[in-house]
């Protein structure tokens, strides 16, 4: 049990996929201007990452490994992820049109969110069991969502502050992320 607890703490805080591993930056900066978009994106990411890691694990273990096709990993994984995202998109469009409109351009871009492929590759590379992969993917994406919501809160406040013109928008966003990452560095060493 403690093994799983450590895995969760490590994935959310110590090795946060965005603040310590640099995965998924583009949508991170793109959707962190408004809280409702950010929470929508965070939920979509949790859903897609958990689902895609589970699927890619199955693909890796039962298709690629038995047939010695591991060198095709990148192509196979990205195809699985792309079709999954398409599925999520169709589902949202039908059942939650409000969220679908809010996410707009970023939903198809989840495919190119490196966090999704990154988590899949990371869990395959560290040879985790299926349950561990699920836990790791879920915790990592929750960490991503948490960082996204924190950053959005800060950026919403700073949007109304008097800031030099050339720092507005992305530059200040990046510097805010830097400070967040600095804070999260404090967790380093907590879990090996």
């Amino acid at each position, binding site marked *: 049990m403690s093994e799983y607890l450590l895995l969760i703490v490590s994935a959310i805080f110590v090795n946060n996929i965005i603040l310590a591993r640099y995965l998924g930056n583009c949508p991170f900066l793109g959707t962190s201007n408004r809280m409702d978009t950010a929470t929508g994106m965070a939920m979509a990411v949790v859903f897609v990452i958990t689902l895609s890691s589970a699927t890619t694990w199955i693909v890796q273990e039962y298709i690629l490994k038995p047939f010695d096709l591991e060198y095709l990993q990148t*192509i196979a994984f990205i195809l699985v992820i*792309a079709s999954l995202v398409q599925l999520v998109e169709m589902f949202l469009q039908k059942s939650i049109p409000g969220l679908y409109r809010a996410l707009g351009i970023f939903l198809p871009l989840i495919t190119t969110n490196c966090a999704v492929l990154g988590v899949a590759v990371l869990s395959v590379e560290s040879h985790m069991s299926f349950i561990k992969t699920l836990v790791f993917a879920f915790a990592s994406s929750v960490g991503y969502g948490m960082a996204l919501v924190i950053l959005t809160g800060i950026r919403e406040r700073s949007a109304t502050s008097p800031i*030099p013109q050339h720092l507005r928008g992305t530059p200040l966003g990046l510097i805010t992320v830097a400070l967040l990452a600095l804070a999260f560095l404090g967790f380093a060493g907590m879990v090996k």
Partner: protein
Amino acid sequence: MGAVVREFTKGLWKEVPPFRLVLGLCPTLAVTTAAKNGVGMGLATTFVLVCSNLIISILRNAIPKKVRIAAFIVVIASFVVIVELMMQAYFYPLYKILGIFIPLIVVNCIILGRAEAFASKNSVLPSIADGLGMGLGFTMSLTLLGAIRELLGNGTVFGIHVMWESFRPFGIMLKPPGAFICLGLILSLMNWISSKQRSH
């Protein structure tokens, strides 16, 4: 010919990724702990970008609109696998350092972005020029960022000592916060230069 040259040069300053188009940030931030890694990553990305632009512009009338993104991704992923295997064979130390960011070239938004915005609408020659320009711009940016971080974080550039003897390196520049803050400051500097140019 002039148009081709223009497509090539726009990637070098006017639309240089990832500074102007804020795309492809993950490799930009992750691998730039040293200038050398920046060059390696940039060239790998350039290769994929040029090849995928070439193939996609050839196939642009054959790919149905509805499944174009999936088709683009398959083309890009194939070239990424080629790069991955080549680097594993010939540049193993660099392959080890870049790690999971080599397979992640496939999800670099710059490549898909250029396929969607440019190569799927233009003929072969401009598409190659566009890919080459954007790729070299990307390489340049990564090298610059890598050089700055390596200089401040380690006191070296391309592995050569350039700082004075008593210089104490800022270890933080090699860690995530250093990457984010460095990129943030470069972006704001570029905004500042552009606004100065506009006001003149």
